[in-house]
């Protein structure tokens, strides 16, 4: 185990992934909000819990067999998967965005991002304390 591995445990990886996922989910939700009146647009979302679990377990679910070392790694290339979202009813113009659901989800998602960011900040502050204490 290298020094870096000792410094950064699973918590940082989890927090980093949570930040990344919250950011990606915000993009999906913003796309839904912006297209709330676009005829034919179908809502998308990202399964935060499933994607986070996937990141922790290292299961990509999309693993492709590599027969050559130069083959691209799909799981590392592809970001979190966007899924079709059917929470809202489809309107006459084929659009199924429920703006109220999207606004609440965005609030919730932003809260997750803020929480993950502040915990990460606190963890990093521990390191700084450890490093700075040697200066004295």
């Amino acid at each position, binding site marked *: 185990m290298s020094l870096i591995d000792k410094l950064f445990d699973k918590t940082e990886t989890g927090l980093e992934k949570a930040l990344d996922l919250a950011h990606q989910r*915000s993009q999906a939700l913003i796309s839904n*909000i*912006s*297209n709330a*009146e*676009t*005829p034919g647009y179908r809502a998308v979302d990202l399964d935060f819990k499933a994607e986070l679990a996937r990141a922790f377990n290292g299961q990509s679910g999309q693993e492709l067999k590599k027969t050559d070392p130069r083959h691209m790694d799909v799981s590392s290339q592809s970001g979190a998967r966007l899924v*079709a979202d059917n929470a809202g009813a489809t309107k006459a113009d084929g659009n199924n965005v429920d703006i109220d659901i999207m606004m609440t989800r*965005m609030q919730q998602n932003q809260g997750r991002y803020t929480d993950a960011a502040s915990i990460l900040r606190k963890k990093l502050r521990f390191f700084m304390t450890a490093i700075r204490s040697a200066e004295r």
Partner: protein
Amino acid sequence: MFDASEVVTAGLSAARLRINIIASNIANAETTRTPEGGPYKRRDIVISAESAPTSFQSSLDEMTLAKPQVLGVIADQSEPKKAYQPGHPDADPDGYVAYPNINVVQTMTDMMAATRLYQANVTAAKSLMEMSREGRRISSTF
């Protein structure tokens, strides 16, 4: 994949254009004379969801983001409303004046919906800004 800021900007601009067009329809609900002749024709906006240009990455993804794109503004071609006003300078030989086919009450509710959509986009943009500020604060620890 589009950037979220790109999507929300397109959303804001489409929502604002919709508000402008609805305002024009309300203001001209009684306009009987236009440069192109005849009464004012109700304007409508055509929006389509534009998906990001197909790349190798996007073809791997199941769903991608889309941004609203204004295809154009169209004029309503339905028959104008006729009102019997023989003394009116725009009356036809039978004494009928052609008024725009605009239901003001319905247009006002459309305006409220459009305003709400614009506000939703503003909230989305604010949330995006808040998140990037929060992200930058992580690095300010050092």
